[in-house]
């Protein structure tokens, strides 16, 4: 942790728990940001002292105002700057002079408006650095802390939310106001609510670390528009999840692809920003959500109910159709329908009418009143084969909705297993839903919507159990020979390393490169091929030719010296005709592996997450199905094996329909070595091993072709 990070942790406590606030640039005008922020702080019932700072007003809403922050006679904990952007630096400078270390800059007109704004933002950072200030924003909605001992609404949101255990952090201020409205309608409360805008100083990473230790927060929701420090975010999220057990849910906008078509390698074109983001989040244990509803559906499951031991659910319904729909959704989601033990079956038989279905899903029949629901829920809760219960209700004329809701609350309090509910409809069930929501029973409008939150909670629990170890970088210094090789190439302005050059680098990292020799005459080609052993493959080696096949630069299945000599002549002629100016270094002769399975492994350097490792199957699997998996480096053996298993085609490696199993361990080994190379040399922008030919189990794998693209800005 650097000094600035340490400072943020200290200063953030004051952002959320100030004893005094200066609202710098406040005015009396309702409906303006400076006017409304002052009123919001006042009307939320802030428990500390408020100092409006206004160049012209003597008092605002009866509170004495000061011309400058430095005129305030007492100490001030938090500064909220609402001046126009052009003078925010003056206001921040005065905060520094006054000794205010925690600041929220609401004002817009910075980085988001272009070059001049960026310059203004940089000025703020310089001032913050000079005085040891931490600031949230600029260009944000503000900060809310619902803690009754604080009651801080330093924002221009319309509402002050109820207190609760969910922290919501957002890069978009406008989304914040929509979320507050949505949450209020669903009786969802918050612990902290932060709009961090341009995150010029305090970022989502700082806020995650702060919330890790916040006793009130149980789950953290984050809306992001850009990830500037992907590795930092992964590290922080992982630490929060593992140390505090608080799940981190992220909604990241910008799922559409950009720039992939310009990539120079397979890995480059397959590893889009969003795929990398998905992989990185998964690796860190971050739950990625597609929309607000999904995010809150999952959040309330975490906050209101215990985590399930396993994924076996019981469904209790008073309507057959919704029961079946929910069963389908549960199976699709990967949940299991619990098989009741004998005692449960007997208990259900005794307490339900003969027409009821006592198997899972349990149908208590349309005329069920609270007593039947209670009997069924209690019975399945007691069953060791049940890890959680879904309760579905449809409103018939005799359905005592509110009583059922109250009984669900009562029964749920007696067991340490999760219960989710779906009272279907809207108007008739509204009061019942309110009872459930006020008593921390998760409610979902559609019964199918209960499945994903349940499975997500279960998976996070699994993640916490699985991730007790942290992946370590090898610790060996980068290979010196490779360093010299790369430095030399870059010094010459060479950024594309052909197969022959790439092979030297891969060999240095002990990747299994198939034996190969570069020849410059037909006669040598024949001799060397015989030395390697037939069959061989011959390929043109030239920095000017990336797609060798397309220009007749590759000949396969060469099985005699004469064929090798002929291949040399054919390749030379074809390439000479099709790429007349190309500088040919020679023709490479290498062993041809005839009985292997082709896979691809590669590296793409992401500006935010660093080197990302890809694994996929060759040929149509990668071209058409994009059947690939990714991990942010470093990747250890365990994760390499997971990468392989994640692909849909991985069964091909385990030997289907009588085929023999392939050497999966050898692939994993190659992935780990590739990861070490990528971590050691950030100059590698893209790297493709395509194909890596995998032999049968125990026989290893071979790099049959490779290319590396370097960059010189490391």
């Amino acid at each position, binding site marked *: 942790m650097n000094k600035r990070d340490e400072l943020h942790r200290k200063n953030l406590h004051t952002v959320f728990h100030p004893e005094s606030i200066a609202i710098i640039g406040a*005015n009396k005008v309702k409906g303006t940001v400076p006017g409304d922020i002052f009123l919001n702080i006042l009307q939320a019932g802030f428990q500390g002292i408020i100092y409006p700072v*206004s*160049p012209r007003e003597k008092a605002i809403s009866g509170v004495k105002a000061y011309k400058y922050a430095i005129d305030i006679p007492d100490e001030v904990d938090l500064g909220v700057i609402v*001046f126009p952007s*052009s*003078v925010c630096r003056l206001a921040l400078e005065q905060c520094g002079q006054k000794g205010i270390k925690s600041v929220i800059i609401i004002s817009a007109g910075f980085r988001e408006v272009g070059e001049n704004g960026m310059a203004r933002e940089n000025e703020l950072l310089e001032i913050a650095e000079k005085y040891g200030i931490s600031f949230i924003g600029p260009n944000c909605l503000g900060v809310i802390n619902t803690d009754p001992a604080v009651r801080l609404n330093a924002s221009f949101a319309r509402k002050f939310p109820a207190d609760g255990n969910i922290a919501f952090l957002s890069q978009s201020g406008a989304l914040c106001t929509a979320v507050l409205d949505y949450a209020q309608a669903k009786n969802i409360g918050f612990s902290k609510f932060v709009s961090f805008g341009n995150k010029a100083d305090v970022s989502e990473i700082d806020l995650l670390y702060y919330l890790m230790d916040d006793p009130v927060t149980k789950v953290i929701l984050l809306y992001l528009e850009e990830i500037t420090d992907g590795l930092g975010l992964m590290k922080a999220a992982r630490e929060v999840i593992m140390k505090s057990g608080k799940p981190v849910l992220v909604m990241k906008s910008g799922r559409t692809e950009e720039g992939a078509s310009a990539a120079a390698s397979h890995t480059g074109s397959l590893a889009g920003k969003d795929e990398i983001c998905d992989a990185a989040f998964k690796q860190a244990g971050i739950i990625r959500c597609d929309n607000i509803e999904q995010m809150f559906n999952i959040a309330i499951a975490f906050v209101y109910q215990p985590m399930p031991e396993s994924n076996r659910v019981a469904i209790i319904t008073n309507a057959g159709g919704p029961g079946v729909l929910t069963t389908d959704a549960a199976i699709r989601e990967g949940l299991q329908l619990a098989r009741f033990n004998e005692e449960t079956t007997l208990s259900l038989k005794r307490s339900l009418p003969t027409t009821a279905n006592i198997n899972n899903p349990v149908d208590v029949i349309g005329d069920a009143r609270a007593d039947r629901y209670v009997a069924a829920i209690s019975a399945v809760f007691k069953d060791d084969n049940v890890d959680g219960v879904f309760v579905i209700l449809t409103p018939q004329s005799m359905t005592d909705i509110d009583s059922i809701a109250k009984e669900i609350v009562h029964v749920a309090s007696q067991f340490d297993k999760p219960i989710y509910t779906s009272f279907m409809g809207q108007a008739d069930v509204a009061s019942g839903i309110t009872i459930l929501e006020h008593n921390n029973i998760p409610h979902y409008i559609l019964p199918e919507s209960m499945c994903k939150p349940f499975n997500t909670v279960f998976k996070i629990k699994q993640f916490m159990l699985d991730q007790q170890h942290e992946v370590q970088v090898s610790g060996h210094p980068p290979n010196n020979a490779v360093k010299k090789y790369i430095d030399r190439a870059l010094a010459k302005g060479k950024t594309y390393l052909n197969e022959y050059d790439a092979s030297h680098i891969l060999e240095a990292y002990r990747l299994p490169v198939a034996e190969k020799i570069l020849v410059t005459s037909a006669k040598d080609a024949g001799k060397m091929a015989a030395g390697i052993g037939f069959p061989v493959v011959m390929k043109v080696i030239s920095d000017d030719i990336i797609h060798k096949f397309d220009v007749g630069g590759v000949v396969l299945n060469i099985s005699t010296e004469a064929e090798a000599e002929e291949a040399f002549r054919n390749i030379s002629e074809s390439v000479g005709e099709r790429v007349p100016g190309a500088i040919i270094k020679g023709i490479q002769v290498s062993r041809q592996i005839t009985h292997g399975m082709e896979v691809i492994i590669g590296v793409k350097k992401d500006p935010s997450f660093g080197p990302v490792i890809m694994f996929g199957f060759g040929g149509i699997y990668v071209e058409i199905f994009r059947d690939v998996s990714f991990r942010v480096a470093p990747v250890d053996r365990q994760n390499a094996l997971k990468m392989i298993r994640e692909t849909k085609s991985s069964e091909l490696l385990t030997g289907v329909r009588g085929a023999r199993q392939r050497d999966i361990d050898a692939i994993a080994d190659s992935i780990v070595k590739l990861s070490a190379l990528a971590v050691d040399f950030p100059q590698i922008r893209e790297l493709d091993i395509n194909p890596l030919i995998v032999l049968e189990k125990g026989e290893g794998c071979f790099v049959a072709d490779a290319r590396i693209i370097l960059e010189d800005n490391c």
Partner: protein
Amino acid sequence: MNKELIKQRIKKVVAEVLKIDESEVSDDANFIFDLGADSMQSMLLIAAFEEEFDIEMDVGKAQEIQTIGGSVDFISEYL
């Protein structure tokens, strides 16, 4: 016109537009930070300066000028 005279006339205009006493307008005052001008008043100041000095200013550039001193230099260029 010498700069001292320009400054006096600018101060008078600022005091009128912002409805404050001329004595409150110091030589290095910032219209927003020190004198509390809002965005509308900032626009009115530009119009008032144009009228006072009978000039037509580049509005975009004029909006970037926020101090008395800056205004003196800026307006001088038009005279």
